[in-house]
C-alpha cells in the first residue's frame, strides 16, 4: 500500500528490501565469510609460492575486503536499515568468494596445478594492475568514453527505430526486412566499410559498437510497443491526445520495460564489440590493451583488463538496474 506520508514511504522501502534481500541476517554466516577471507590471507601469506609474484597487493585487497565486511556487519548488527538487509543477504555469497580465492590461490601460485602462462593467480593479476596502473587508468577512461557515447547512440537509434516499427506498420513494412538483414552482418565484415564511410576512425569505432546495440534494443522495442494494450491508446484518444502525445505518454512508457530488456541484453555484446572496434585507430583503451597483451602473449595483462571490465560492467549494470527500478516502479513486481 502506498501513501503520501514519509513514514509510509519508508515502510514501503523496507518491504521492497525484504523482497529483494530475502536471506535473513545471520551472525553465523557473517562470521564465516570473514573467516574464509582471513584463511585466504593466511594461506597466501604462509604457504610457499611456486611462482614469482609479489603478493603485497593481494594482501591489501584481502585486508580491504575483510575491513569492508567487518564494517557492514557491525553496522548491520546495530542498525535495522538497508545495510543490515544487504549484508545479511550477501554473507553467504561473500563466503563463497573467500573460498574461491583460497582455491584459485592454491591451484595456481601454491601448487601450480594450473600453470602459467594461461592460468594466473588473482594476486598476479592485482600485481599486474598495479604495475600498469597508469596505462590501465587511461585505457579505462578512454574505453568508458567510447562505450558510453556508442551505447547512448545505439540505444537511441534502436529505440527510435523500434518505436517507429512497432507503432507504424508502414514503417515496419519498409524498414524491417532491410534492417533484419543489416543486423546480422558480422562486425568483421563491417570494418573496412566503416573505415571508408566515416571521416575519422573514432566515428567508425562508435558505429561498430552502436551497431551491436541498436539491433537487440530495436528488436525488443518493437515487441514492447506491440504488446501495449490497445485500451491505453483508445483511452488516450478519448482524452484528446494527439499522435505526438500518444507516443510520448503511451508508447514510450509502455515499451520501456522491453526497452530495458533490450538494453541489458545489448550490454554484454557491446563490451565484446568494444574490444573488436578498438582494433581500428585506437591509441589506448581496454580493448586495445587486451589486443596488445595478446600480441605479446601476456595473459596476466589480458586477465587484468578483464577484471577491470567485469568491475566496470558490474557498476554499469547496477546503475542501469537502479535506473530501471526507478523508471519502472509503476510495475507490479518492481522489475
Amino acid at each position, binding site marked *: 500500500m502506498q501513501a503520501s506520508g514519509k513514514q509510509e514511504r519508508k515502510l514501503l522501502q523496507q518491504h521492497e528490501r525484504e523482497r529483494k534481500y530475502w536471506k535473513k541476517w545471520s551472525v553465523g554466516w557473517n562470521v564465516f565469510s570473514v573467516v574464509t577471507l582471513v584463511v585466504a590471507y593466511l594461506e597466501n601469506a604462509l604457504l610457499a609460492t611456486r611462482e614469482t609474484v609479489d603478493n603485497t597487493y593481494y594482501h591489501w585487497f584481502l585486508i580491504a575486503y575483510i575491513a569492508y565486511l567487518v564494517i557492514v556487519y557491525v553496522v548491520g548488527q546495530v542498525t535495522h536499515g538497508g545495510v543490515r538487509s544487504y549484508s545479511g543477504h550477501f554473507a553467504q555469497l561473500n563466503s563463497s568468494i573467500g573460498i574461491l580465492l583460497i582455491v584459485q590461490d592454491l591451484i595456481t601460485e601454491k601448487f601450480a596445478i594450473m600453470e602459467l602462462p594461461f592460468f594466473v593467480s588473482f594476486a598476479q593479476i592485482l600485481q599486474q594492475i598495479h604495475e600498469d596502473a597508469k596505462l590501465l587508468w587511461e585505457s579505462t577512461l578512454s574505453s568508458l568514453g567510447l562505450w558510453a557515447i556508442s551505447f547512448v547512440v545505439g540505444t537511441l537509434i534502436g529505440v527510435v527505430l523500434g518505436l517507429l516499427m512497432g507503432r507504424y506498420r508502414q514503417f515496419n513494412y519498409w524498414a524491417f526486412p532491410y534492417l533484419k538483414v543489416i543486423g546480422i552482418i558480422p562486425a568483421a565484415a563491417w570494418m573496412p566499410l566503416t573505415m571508408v564511410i566515416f571521416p575519422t576512425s573514432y566515428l567508425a569505432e562508435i558505429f561498430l559498437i552502436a551497431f551491436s546495440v541498436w539491433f537487440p534494443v530495436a528488436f525488443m522495442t518493437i515487441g514492447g510497443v506491440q504488446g501495449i494494450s490497445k485500451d491505453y491508446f483508445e483511452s488516450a484518444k478519448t482524452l484528446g491526445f494527439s499522435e505526438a502525445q500518444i507516443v510520448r505518454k503511451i508508447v514510450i512508457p509502455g515499451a520501456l520495460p522491453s526497452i530495458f530488456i533490450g538494453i541489458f541484453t545489448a550490454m554484454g555484446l557491446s563490451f565484446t564489440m568494444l574490444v573488436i572496434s578498438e582494433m581500428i585507430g585506437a591509441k589506448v583503451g581496454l580493448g586495445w590493451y587486451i589486443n596488445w597483451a595478446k600480441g605479446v*602473449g601476456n595473459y596476466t595483462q589480458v586477465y587484468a583488463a578483464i577484471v577491470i571490465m567485469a568491475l566496470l560492467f558490474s557498476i554499469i549494470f547496477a546503475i542501469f538496474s537502479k535506473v530501471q527500478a526507478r523508471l519502472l516502479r509503476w510495475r507490479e513486481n518492481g522489475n
Partner: protein
Amino acid sequence: GSNSANKGTSTYKYGSITVPAKDGSVCNAPNYIAYEKGFFKQNGIKAKLVANPRDISDLEAGFASGKYDAQNGDFQYLPAIQNGAQIKAAGGIHQGCIKLLVPKNSKINNVKDLRGKTIGIPAQGSTPQYVTSIALQHAGIDPKKDVTWKVYSTDLLAKAAQKGEVDAIGTVDPYAYQAQKQNGFKTIIDNNNASGNAKQAAMGMKKQGSCCYLYISNKLINNDTPKAKAIVKSYQEAAEWINKHPEQTAKIELSKGYVSKTKFINVKNVSEILRTERFHLNLKKGKSDLSYYIQQLKEAGYLKKNTNNKQLLKQAYWNPKMN
C-alpha cells in the same frame, strides 16, 4: 598431390601434424608448398593445414595445448616466448616483407622525420612495429616516447594513411607492395636488405636478415625430435623449391585457393613478391638474427629490462643440427 609427392613412403612414418597456415597470406608459401609438392609426405608427415588465428596468444594457446605443431611466423613472437609461449624458432625462412611506408605526397623522407609523428601498425607488438622501432632507435628516436602508435587491421592501414589519420604505416606484403605499386606510397624502411643497401643498414636492417621463422612447438621438439627434424627438413626443401620456382609457387597459391585472386594479386605480382623474399631455411643465420633482434627489442623496451639475452635465445631457438 603432385608427382614428387608420390615418391615418398606411402605410410606416414611420423604421423600427422597441424599447421595453422590458411590465412590467405602470400608469404606463408612454405606451408602450402611443403604440402602441395609433397615435401611433408616425403619426410613421413601427414600435414593438416587449418585456419591461422593470426593473434599470437591464440596461436600460443594452440601450440601449448598440442593443437598446432609448426608454423612460419615473424620474430614478433620473442616477447611471447619470454612470457612463456611454448614454441621455438628453428631458422629463418625468408627475408623481409615488412616496410614502413608514407603516402605519395608525404613530407617524411627518412626515419628522422618520424619524430613526433603517428604511425599506423597492424597491432601492438606486431613485427612492423618492431622493425620500425629498430630503425627509430638507430636514428636516436625513442620508439616508446617520440612517436604515437595507432592500431588498424592490416587491410585498412593504407586507407588510414590516405585519410591522414596516420603519417606513416608499418605494414607487410602484399599490402605494402600494393600500396607502393597502386597508390604510390614511398618506402622509408624496408627490412628486406638483400642488396646490402647502406642506408637501410644504417637503420639496423641487416643484410640478408631473416624476417619470418619456422616455429615448432616445444612439445614436439622435446618429445619427438625426429619428427621435429622431419618438419624442418620439409620446410627446408619447400623453401628451396620456392626460391627456385617463384612463378610456379605463385600459380599454386592462386589456383589452389591459398591466396585469393584480385586484380592486383595475380601471378605476376605474387611471384615478384616471392622472388624478393628469397626463401631459404637459414639455420645458422637464423640464430644470429634472433640474437640481434633480442638485443634490439630489449633496447627498445619491448622485452623485460632484466632480460638475459643468452637465456632468452636458448628459450627461443632450437638448432635442429641437420646434417
